């Protein structure tokens, strides 16, 4: 049975997480991708308040498909995280504790995770229909004009993630790949 965590995440929880840990998230998380990050960081740079309190929170890099009538949300899997690398360290400095996405993070982000005691989680890319089943409520809390890129507050239940980068420098992508890399006979 995978362990369940609920935001806001404390330093104690972050300290207990290691690359490769499989977890379930239950509670409130926030969505944000390229355009929302750009706006958030513009506010940070101007010293203005953000539309959401990031303290201890998790941002999920996702731009869902529109919900059909009766649905909470459409398909909602992770987008490629690397595009947020330019912005993430500034948000981590403000108390953001977790990010959910897929794909590699750069060194600046990995260093920021160590410095700020935070983690980067992976969700399964392309499993948008499956992951949507674990989202029980969604409402736009900022930047409605951005459509799929608006910031949404999601209520999730048993949302499956794996720790990719922990606060100790552990990196599941590098470790997993190393384990299965082999020479090939041509």
């Amino acid at each position: 049975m995978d362990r369940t965590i609920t935001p806001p995440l404390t330093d104690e929880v972050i300290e207990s997480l290691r690359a490769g840990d499989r977890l379930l998230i239950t509670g409130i998380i926030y969505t944000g991708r390229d355009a929302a990050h750009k706006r958030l960081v513009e506010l940070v740079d101007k010293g203005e308040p953000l539309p959401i309190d990031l303290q201890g929170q998790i941002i999920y890099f996702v731009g869902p498909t529109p919900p059909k009538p009766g649905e909470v949300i459409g398909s909602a899997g992770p987008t490629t995280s690397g595009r947020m690398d330019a912005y993430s360290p500034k948000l981590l400095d403000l108390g953001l504790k977790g990010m959910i996405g897929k794909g590699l993070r750069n060194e600046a982000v990995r260093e920021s995770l160590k410095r700020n005691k935070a983690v980067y989680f992976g969700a399964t890319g392309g499993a948008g229909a499956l992951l949507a089943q674990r989202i029980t409520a969604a409402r736009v809390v900022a930047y409605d004009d951005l459509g799929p890129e608006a910031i949404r507050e999601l209520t999730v239940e048993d949302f499956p993630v794996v720790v990719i980068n922990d606060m100790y420098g552990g990196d599941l992508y590098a470790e997993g790949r190393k384990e299965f890399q082999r020479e090939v006979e041509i």
Partner: protein
Amino acid sequence: MREVDVARITNAVAELAVDACNVLGDDVVAFFEKAAEREESETGRDILRQLLENAALARETARPLCQDTGLAVVFVEVGQEVHLVGGSLEDAVDAGVAKGYTEGYLRKSAVADPIGTRKNTGDNTPAMLHTRIVPGDKVKVIVAPKGGGAENMSALAMLKPSQGRQGAVDFVVDTVSKAGPNPCPPIIVGVGLGGSFEKAAYLAKHSLLREVGSTNPDPRLAELEDEIERRCNALGIGPAGLGGITTVIDVFVEELPAHIASMPVAVNIQCHSARHKEVVL
């Protein structure tokens, strides 16, 4: 001459876009089933099972497989004995994209002014349209929604002829290696060899329409596909990039003669949501 009303093309594009986004091809599903058995990584097997569950859920709930329902890449092959009536073909295709993406609750992912304001066009137009005039009196419409994550990991190089076969293979494998977990592996690797700059890219894109498990009928290229596949799977990237022996679903190589001075190699990466549907009118 046989007349075909472009309104039929609009409806075909709309229906194919929705169908492609919600229903994964049997060839890809069969691959996941096979790979889930032979993958050596436990996490990798778990990811492949998630992808099978995701495909079943998407089909049952008519929800897109992936939230990135892509730019709408559309191929239209028009028989030269067909007279298209009722308006412009390009407008009809765009109307189909707008209809499919709006009425089908697909995500609109197209932005205008890409290096500036990046404002959403609102209806996922324009289609990335490729047309061909072919013999016959039919119209074939293919819709292949293409997500950004895998497209971003694609690459094209104008290699030197002296780099030869080895240089071409190394470039393809290096592109897959650098992509790592980003393009949602297991991936399909479409490779266009030769031709001009744009033809190489087109060949790589068009190759992605092939059925998983198919090999190029030219034994020389079939061997190349096999070698690239073995080298990519030996990278250890695995399902979702978490480590494993299943990095690629398939490798498709297509080729054209090149200029005496050139050796273009295009690599178009397709995520595991390998979506394309077609109809003949």
